């Protein structure tokens, strides 16, 4: 990284010289219900991976993994899962 000057300004025209910085917004904090995986049920059909609006599902060797930093808890994955491998539960707030 280049040396940062004392006072930063904005790039003219409001151009953003960065990529994927929206990741700073952890939309997972909005969640009320949380998707929970039911072991041994996933058949890796990829439907939840495609349907998830927030790109929170990744395919793994065993099935899927959910990124809770961004999951808003909409429940589409659970409703659409053909093998009921995901259930929605009310999330306990610590």
């Amino acid at each position, binding site marked *: 990284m*280049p040396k940062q000057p004392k006072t930063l300004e904005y*790039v003219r025209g409001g151009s953003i010289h960065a990529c994927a910085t*929206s990741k700073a917004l952890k939309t997972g904090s909005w969640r009320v219900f949380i998707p929970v995986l039911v072991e041994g049920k996933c058949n890796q059909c990829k439907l939840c991976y495609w349907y998830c*609006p927030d790109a929170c599902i990744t395919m793994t060797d065993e099935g899927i993994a959910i990124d809770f930093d961004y999951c808003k808890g909409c429940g589409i994955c659970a409703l*659409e899962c053909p093998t009921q491998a995901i259930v929605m539960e009310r999330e306990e707030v610590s």
Partner: protein
Amino acid sequence: MMMYLSGSEALAQAVKLCRVDVMSAYPITPNTPALAALSDLIRDGEMDTVSVNAESELGSMLICSGASSAGARTFNCTAAQGLALMKEPLWMASGMALPVVVAVASRQLGSPQGLLSDFSDCFSERDASVLQFICENNQEIIDSMILAYRVSENAKVLLPSFVVYEGFRLSHSHEAVDVPDRELVDRFLPPYNPKHAFVDPDYPITQGAGAFTHYYGLKHQQYRAMLDAREVILDGLKDFEGIFGRSYPGLIETYKTDEADMVLVGMGTIVSLLREMVDEYRDKGIRLGLLKIRVFRPFPEDEIAAALKDVPKVLVVDRAVSPGRRQGISYLEIASCLDNHKGRLSNYIISGNDMGLKEVREMVEDSLAAKGSFLKWQGTVFDQGAASLTGFPNFQALVEKEEKNLPCLQEGEAIMAQGTTTCAGCVSLTALRLALSQFDKDTVVTNNAGCLMAASAIFPVTAFRVPHIFYTYSNAGAAACGLEVALKRMGKKMKVFLFAGDGGMFDIGLQTFSAALERGHEIVYMCYDNEAYMNTGVQRSGSTPWQSKTKTTPFGKVQGKKSIMKIVEAHGNVYAATASPAYPKDLMRKVAKAKEAGKPAFLHVQTPCPTGWEFPDEKAIEIARLAVETNFFPLYEYDSGEVKVKKPAKKKLKPVEAYLKAQGRFSHMSDADIAEYQKIVDKEFEELLRREERGTT
């Protein structure tokens, strides 16, 4: 009657009291709660104004102009880019002496698209021969509306008026408001009975004729009418006090300015805080005074000159600036009224900043301590955290060392990152992610304004990993053409992908979109069709289907849904396809085909919206699937004349009732209406099949 109303609700009450014949508006935050309140009053039979939900602000202002030319009393309501888009018909209206009243829910004029109010929208129309009443509170919204009609329609004036109320600070804030009785308003405001511009077969006149050398005389009339408006306003205010018992001193209001050591000058909501400052400092023995400018056009030159004549120090609090001049706009206006402003007039520029007592007090302290006059911008101009997030250091490295520090899209990475702020269960976002999965790093993404823009790139952050450019509502189609030709000219082999909602494609952006298709630019367009203006809070669009309830059709939409596919197909040599997020493989296949089509390509994706359609978040995909399985939204492709339909399997075909009953927006429908809907859907699907059979057209 005292009521507890938001500024938007107060405005709606005023439109009702003023017996407006025709209103037309286009949804733009923050005018939307006013549109909803007006639609509710019409639905409940409380007012009989004809309301035309326009396709753009350009359209809405011309609908008002047309109605005013016919001799009707008209109303419009807008903000920011909306007001900018209606500039041309606005100047036409004042030139044609049409007294349209436009409520401006003032908002910063982009780019960047701001949301706060700084009067940059209404002040940009300073020279449009439009009267401008600036409201301090919700009471003034009602009172200024009633006054504005009376003054605008006066034979000595005959010019449009703005009633300016600050977005959010007033539009969304509730206050106790004295709503006058209808009979009193009728006494104050006579019916509009124009003698200069109307339509009558027995007295056929011509309006708006071109005038070449005679422009001079006609402009002089506008100039004179605007000056005469001052007396008409003062006359109106005298009557106003007699009839309503509330008094307004004139085009300005002064508070404790006599023998004041320093006078604060402001407009709009900030005045309430400045008034408190005067009291606070007077208690401490410091003689502050206040000058409030209530009418910006015509500008109260003489009143200001008299009020500030002997004041040793004046602090002008300004929101809008005129780049190229050092001081803010109202400072410049005020300085030009005074014989000797040098050395005693100071200027604080606060732009759209929300101010509290603390900030206002700091301003006053600063000004009291200053020797001579000064000019300052309030607060911190550059937020260091934001500047860092925007990658300013990367920009510096590029400028100073030609270093490119941005990571390009890597294998396995999505074009759009997470952290996108759509509502939970937004399958418009699903559709966009699926579509983008078919593109690589050699892609430039652009879009019209809409939900997905607001969710994916709001300064200082962006979700994109490829070049992305945001243009506003009406113009993205044309801007994408500019991108496409420039990239080709510069030898960059990149795909141009444009996404827009139904408002951006069916309505306000249709002209530039159609022109782009006709010229044959190689652009892939995706319309995420959630069947209303969702980003502004669910208002009717050209895509809203028959019977669907929205905030501007609280009784259900009377008209049917526009067929954007048929419009696109009519351009001939194009690829067009409908798609659904419920069928991801089909959607991605069509996007891949569109990308390689070698001609303009369009994807019409229906995207159920839990917020606007009223169903639980998790059902968005289920409802998208139902739309296809009921033939409500058939999946088909059009390729330069050939139509290919994907028919649902017979065992999966469902009655349209199953689709309608799953959504709150259709909950008011009767069984007869549902049966009628089935007939419409069947007829449209049969027509589609016939088009498929006919083959190349």
